[in-house]
């Protein structure tokens, strides 16, 4: 089969032409400017995933919120479920970029990690 998939890894948004089969996966790919597209289109066809980014309230920090993301990306159809899981959880300063704030969210094997340093106020 042939599909055009817009690569969303970076803002360049290459409209990637993909040849693929259900059994054999991606057999051909063109119109992409970098290698990150290879992995993306394969994932988008067979196991679409997204990084959910949001924030969590912080107690005792110099920012009221710490920004977070799922790492690695979670299944696309579970984004709102993940939000509900994150909602209500508060964290304590200090926090460093990369700290795991929720491990293995929704049993996806993905963590929710901090993307901002929050110092003690």
């Amino acid at each position, binding site marked *: 089969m042939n599909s055009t998939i817009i690569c969303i890894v970076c803002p360049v948004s290459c409209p990637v032409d993909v040849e693929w089969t259900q059994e054999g996966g991606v057999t051909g790919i063109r119109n992409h400017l970098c290698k990150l597209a290879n992995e993306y289109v394969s994932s988008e066809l067979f196991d679409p995933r997204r990084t959910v980014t949001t*924030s969590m*309230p912080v107690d005792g920090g110099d920012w009221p*919120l710490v920004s977070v993301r799922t790492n690695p990306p979670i299944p696309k159809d579970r984004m*709102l479920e993940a*939000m*509900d899981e994150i*909602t*209500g959880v508060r964290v304590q300063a200090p926090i460093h970029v990369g700290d795991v704030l929720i491990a293995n969210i929704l049993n996806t094997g993905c963590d929710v990690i901090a993307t901002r340093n929050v110092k003690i106020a």
Partner: protein
Amino acid sequence: MSEKYDVAIIGGGVVGSAIARELSRYNLKVTVLERAADVARGTSGKNSGVVHTGINVPYGSVKAKYNVAGAKMFEQYCADLDVPFKRVGKVIVALTEAEVPDLAGLKAKGDANGVPDLEIIDRATLKKMEPNIEGAGALNVPTAAIACPYSLTIALAESAAAAGVEIKLNSPVTSITGTEGAFEIETPNETVSAGLIINSAGLNSDKIARMVNVHRWRIWPCRGEYIILDKRVGNLINSMVYPVPPKGGGGLGIHITPTTDGNILLGPSADYTDDGDDVRTTAKIRRQLLREAGEFLPGLTPRAVITAYSGMRPKLVPSKVGGFGDFVIEEVPEAPGVMQLVGIESPGLTASPAIAEHVSNWVRERIPATSNSGFQNTWSSVHRTREKTLAVVDNLIAEDPSYGEVVCRCEMVTKAEIVDSINNKLGATSLNAIKYRSRATMGRCQGGFCGPRIVDLLIENGKSPESITLNGGNSWLFLGTTEDLRAESKAKRAKQKADAEKVEAK
């Protein structure tokens, strides 16, 4: 139990506020009832800010009397209250040769009213004075001036409050009973007793009059849209640029007016409306303003527009009749003890000090009063560091470091000025209250950058996010925290899921 006052002033526009300040010179118990969340939210806040000389009003009219008298008082008035005032002069421009003869008639009217130094100038002289303006000739009115109308109103109200006048915001008057010496005035919050009433309710002055059984007047709201231009093009004009007034109309025509802060105003249009609160702006008038102003000012580009807004004139003459409508400044036999100030449209700003003096005399003839030692002749609401030299600013910062944090970079407003605005004498804490006191958010980014910082400062000064409004009432800005909204939606999804499961179980 109602609170008792000697005088209740209904309406916190420039006239009501000026009267409040004038009365605060004496030991009188005075209150101002203002329906909005701040003073200057009606006609007084949204006009051209022109201190008229008296050239546009017929000799012998009430308008002429108070206009000419007010204009003489205005400069000192603004100086006392630390309000921006500039005598920039005015040119009334004949766009074509055909309009040039009209200038003589205008000059005659002005001469009759005693306006000094009027002069008809030719095309070349106009070009020398206003290089960017097109015109066949003009009437030069060098004594015309501009002032900041909302700053003046706020300063008047705050100085009155400082001297003991009680300014009650969010207090629309719903009914009035009783007679002179014992009026009972209802607002949604309380009943106010007063010996005398001043009806300075502007757009609603006819309704207030009807509450005391005076049915003589009807206000015809007439919307005027304005466009405001970036300071970057502020040097396109030096003085006010007016057209020859349109024949038969009740207005002065669309003019190009500098503001005391260096912007340019285009407007106002004139559209009668049934709803005095309908201060919308329209695409049609925006195009018209740019086109008509562009005839005088070919260098005008739409890219210079910062924003548009509308003011509302309280006219006493309906659109079908048109023409001149005079001010009503009188106590009428149907309602003794009530000073009726009705139809105070342009030149109401200019006339306000003279009206206030007249009304103060009227009050004191009825309630003699001694001088109030708490009254101060000079007043300053909020420092304007943008007008100060670097050395002065440096000294201010040494005294108070919050003068060193510029919150609004477009208008160079510091944290100290914002905090002073938040803690104003009237207790007005909407974003607009801060805007009209400090100028923050009035620049080219329209609060995109400084809005969040001002919100911080409001919260630091005791406001909850849910209680912050743009303009009082239901003009809320925040539902609450992001976390609150998220919890709301989580609960909604949980309920949907439970409902779906219930259906499945059935």
